[in-house]
């Protein structure tokens, strides 16, 4: 079952990269979402999959009675999801600010920091 998920990850990565390569910053952002979800899934898959047994210890037990899913990757993903949320939200704010100040969200037209050579600068 890991292999199927690996395939899904591959599709997500490809789709994410494709979206990021569009000049539209919003598309970039969406590509980023895809990629960051893919990264989370990578951690999940790399920690190996177990069907439907959450890492919870039943009341009255000192340790899980049945084999449970690997908890550490889950904790990593949780951290990564929340961090990703912060980064994505900031990026969204940046895109909004860009549109407000530069009047475009097309990255092809963002040439202020690095003006094209014919615009008078060296």
């Amino acid at each position, binding site marked *: 079952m890991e292999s199927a998920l690996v395939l899904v990850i591959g599709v997500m990565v490809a789709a994410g990269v494709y979206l990021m390569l569009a000049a539209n910053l919003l598309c970039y952002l969406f590509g980023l979402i895809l990629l960051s979800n893919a990264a989370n899934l990578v951690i999940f898959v790399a920690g190996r999959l177990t069907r439907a047994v959450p890492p919870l210890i039943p009341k009255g037990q000192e340790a899980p009675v049945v084999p449970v899913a690997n908890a550490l990757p889950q904790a990593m993903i*949780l951290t990564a999801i929340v961090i990703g949320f912060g980064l994505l939200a900031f990026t969204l*704010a940046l895109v909004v600010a860009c549109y407000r100040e530069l009047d475009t969200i097309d990255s092809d037209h963002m040439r202020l920091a690095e003006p094209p050579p014919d615009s008078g600068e060296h």
Partner: protein
Amino acid sequence: MISLILQGATRLLVALILLFSVYMLMRGHNLPGGGFIAGLIASAAFVLYALAWSLREAREALRVSPVKLAAIGALISLASAVPGMLKGFPPFTGLWLFIGGGAGDKGIPISTVLLFDVGIYLAVLGAVLALFFTIEED
């Protein structure tokens, strides 16, 4: 602009969502939930508030500025390490105190770990709200 139906439903929903968030926070150590999830849920309540009523009212309901709330949360998380420090443990060492424990039942737990989780709850709530409020008011 603002729908009466939305506002009406929000009256109840905000309280319910907040309740749910506290529930998720409290049981997080033993069942799915915890400071993160609870903080996210709680922030959803205030986001709903802001969407349905207005940003101003959401801010008033929150009473503290979200950034301050987040900073307080983070500092609470940090402060949860102080008892450990006093006892000579490294940072983030959990200390547990069980009140009224008996045989088979440890009693009501009070721990720095839970304090840490509460700090996370507040910090996530504050930070997420700060993001939303900024974007909304812009």
